[in-house]
């Protein structure tokens, strides 16, 4: 008996929904195996990471707080990924957005007024936009690969953060710690649910998911993004400009990442510190894919990844798992998702030894492929 993959005639819709759950399950299994092999209590680690955050109602608010930035960033990334625009630098846009908002906060320090917080949020969005505009410009003007530029700009953003924290924006009364002043009450996000950590960013994330859903599913813009991603030539034929789609995708994802950044700074942090970046911008890539680039899927996936953040912190304190464990779980999730995705287009078949002449089926078709030019290579 052998396992073999057989192409499906149409991609399976059921598998589209089953595979993300399957990926999470495989991550759990692999996690148990790996941590046991490393000498930790494997089952206990899984329990701490995936069950404790859900079992303890007190931690639920933590989940929402962690999920909000992931969802907001992933929504923007999904727009780009649908159009085959690969913004990998959401982390950088998130940082610069937060810095821009912080700039407004420091400039308005000591002032009072309801205008301050909206101004900070606007600055946050614009900061993310501006940071994403650099790869967009380079891509549309000089055809520079946006994966590289957006990624590298993340490291520029981190250095910018370090410079500002240690230099011009250092709290003058902060005993020389590299961090800004604490934001005033006019500069921090109000709680959405009184008495909890759940800040305004949480309901905003959910509202944005609904908006993104409507835009992607019902509007010409959403249609454009989808067509440009699926068939660039058909998009041109339909009158959709590839250049404008690149700008749209990068500015949307950059703006949303910037928004998530200032929400995080004005919410949980209430100041800016060098510890501000915690890879939300990278984790959001996993959220976008785990959620199938669909806004509602992204909300669910955002919660799942939030569990891994909260649970990872748990496991560090309770059974001494290293900090890197969280990242490893997140990476495994994406890895397994990409691996099981093959089931959407292929089905697994068991073939018995006598069912067909095996030597014929196992023969690769490479010699023929080498002689007959493939349409992709011929038209490239």
């Amino acid at each position, binding site marked *: 008996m052998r396992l073999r993959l057989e*192409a499906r005639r149409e991609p399976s819709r059921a598998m589209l929904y089953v595979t993300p759950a399957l990926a999470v399950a495989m991550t759990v299994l692999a996690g148990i195996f790996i941590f046991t092999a490393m000498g930790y209590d494997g089952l206990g680690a899984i329990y701490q990471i995936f069950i404790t955050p859900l079992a303890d109602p007190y931690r639920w608010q933590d989940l929402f707080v962690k999920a909000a930035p992931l969802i907001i960033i992933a929504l923007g990334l999904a727009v780009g990924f649908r159009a085959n625009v690969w913004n990998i630098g959401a982390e950088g846009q998130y940082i610069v957005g937060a810095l821009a908002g912080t700039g407004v906060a420091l400039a308005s320090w000591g002032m009072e007024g309801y205008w301050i917080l909206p101004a900070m949020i606007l600055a946050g969005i614009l900061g993310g936009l501006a940071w994403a505009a650099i790869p967009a410009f380079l891509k549309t003007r000089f055809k520079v690969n946006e994966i590289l530029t957006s990624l590298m700009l993340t490291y520029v953003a981190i250095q910018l953060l370090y410079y500002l924290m240690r230099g011009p924006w250092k709290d003058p009364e902060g005993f020389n710690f590299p961090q800004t002043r604490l934001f005033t009450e006019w500069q921090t996000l109000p709680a959405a649910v009184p008495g909890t950590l759940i800040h305004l960013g949480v309901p905003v994330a959910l509202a944005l998911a609904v908006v993104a859903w409507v835009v992607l599913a019902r509007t010409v813009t959403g249609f454009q993004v989808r067509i440009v991603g699926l068939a660039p030539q058909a998009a041109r034929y339909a009158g959709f400009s590839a250049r404008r789609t690149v700008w749209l995708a990068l500015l949307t994802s950059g703006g949303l990442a910037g928004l998530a950044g200032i929400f995080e700074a004005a919410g949980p942090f209430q100041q800016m510190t060098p510890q501000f970046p915690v890879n939300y911008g990278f984790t959001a890539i996993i959220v976008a894919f785990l959620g199938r680039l669909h806004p509602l899927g992204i909300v669910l996936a955002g919660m799942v990844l939030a569990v891994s953040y909260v649970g990872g912190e748990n496991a560090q304190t309770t059974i001494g798992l290293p900090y890197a464990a969280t990242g490893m779980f997140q990476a495994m999730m994406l890895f397994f998702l990409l691996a099981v995705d093959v089931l959407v287009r292929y089905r697994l078949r068991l073939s018995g030894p006598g069912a067909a002449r095996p030597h014929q089926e196992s023969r690769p078709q490479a010699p023929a492929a080498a002689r007959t030019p493939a349409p992709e290579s011929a038209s490239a």
Partner: protein
Amino acid sequence: MGQEGHPPRLALEGITKRFPGVLANDEVSFAVAPGEIHALLGENGAGKSTLVKIIYGVLHADEGRILWDGRPVEIPNPKAARRLGIGMVFQHFSLFEAMTVLENIALGIDEKVGWRELQERVVRILEAYDLPLDPRREVHTLSVGERQRIEIVRALLQKPRLLIMDEPTSVLTPQEVERLFDTLRQLASEGCSILYISHKLHEIKALCDTATILRGGRVVGTCDPKAESARSMAEMMIGGALRDVSRRRGGEFGQDRLNVVRLSAPGEGPFGVPLKEISLNVRAGEIVGIAGVAGNGQNELLAALAGEMEGAEHGAIFLNGKACIAANVGERRREGMCSVPEERYGHGAVPGISLSDNAVLTARYRMGLTGQGFIRYAAAEDFARNVIETFGVRTTGPKATAGSLSGGNLQKFIMGREILQKPDILVVSQPTWGVDAGAAAAIHQALLDLAAAGSAILLISQDLDELLALCDRIAVINGGRLSQMMEVEGISIERVGLLMGGMHGENESPPGGGARERRNAA
């Protein structure tokens, strides 16, 4: 030609091949005698390619066996096929543009041969078969006919006893076809069997000794093509009566609907062909044809007229007298111009989305399928259903994905989508490429009806028969330049053929601007 006593060179017995959901070959049996030129005739999707791939070892039959000189053989891969003595010339060439003829040949052969010896053998073959080809030339300077000769030489170097030719004339000029036929006849007279795959009936009548006709994966008949009429073979091929398409000529035409003046545009991609000062006009009710071998600027012409080049064109384009060189795709469509590109999958339609969504793709401008930035899905579905019903598209409905349709049905949908928008000007490229005869006749009739209703049609096609049957005037495109317009009434096929081959007459042909290999796959 049936040699009694000799076993056939190649015999297929009950070959069956299944793909998921399709029976590509169903109990196919036939035999090719030594020295016979045997036609394999059938529409697109009849199973010809699958069968040939099985013979050449690219695919493997689920059932049945292959006999070579009377002995059953296994052909696990193309190398084994070549060792048996089976050569194949593919429809799409695999050549490196930047290398010489000889270098390309050296790359394509299995055995290790010294450079000098290879050159001698190549020259000997070129002389023996009177093939004009310079082994030192670089491929990108060659015409399509010359490129095909490289593939033929490659095959002949293996001293084949069966040569498979897959749709060899689809990219050749009439003169090049004649030359190819002479070569094939000479080969056959030396005892090499030839399996000739085509759907062009007059060629099969002119060349072949026997024809095996495939339909829906089965053999539906074997005949002597010289004794049959083209019509009777066509009817066997499509399994029904052929519909006649005829053009009333000499009608009165209206005003210029499309007017192009000295249009130039850059080539698309590294081996694209730039357009050079193209001028033409199409009047209301008229069908104007653009003939030419593939890759001579046809794709660029369509893109430049449809506005897909995003402002890279120079010159002037007038739609209904209104200058629109600077207009984008949407503005040109609103002005009354619709277009159908050559490639259906991924250009004319997106395979992964529904027919209804594919309707939104281009019909949204003229049919009100969007409003306030939102897509009107109900209207799109109604329009798609209208296209499906009016043009007899065989599908489960507007929600079916475009990729689930056969090539012919998808083409009918795309044509229908553009025609139902009632365009003033329709630019169409290769509307019946790879489409079955029934769908082709329906598409031709739809074009004639559209012209009769007063639209202007520019028809870009490599199929001369199609152009002669439908068009009022024809020009030939070669190396990005357009020849003078000729009235179809009393046209000289020989002259058209020469123009297709690059003889411009009054215009000097640019060096290296010859015909290029067809780059987009069917």
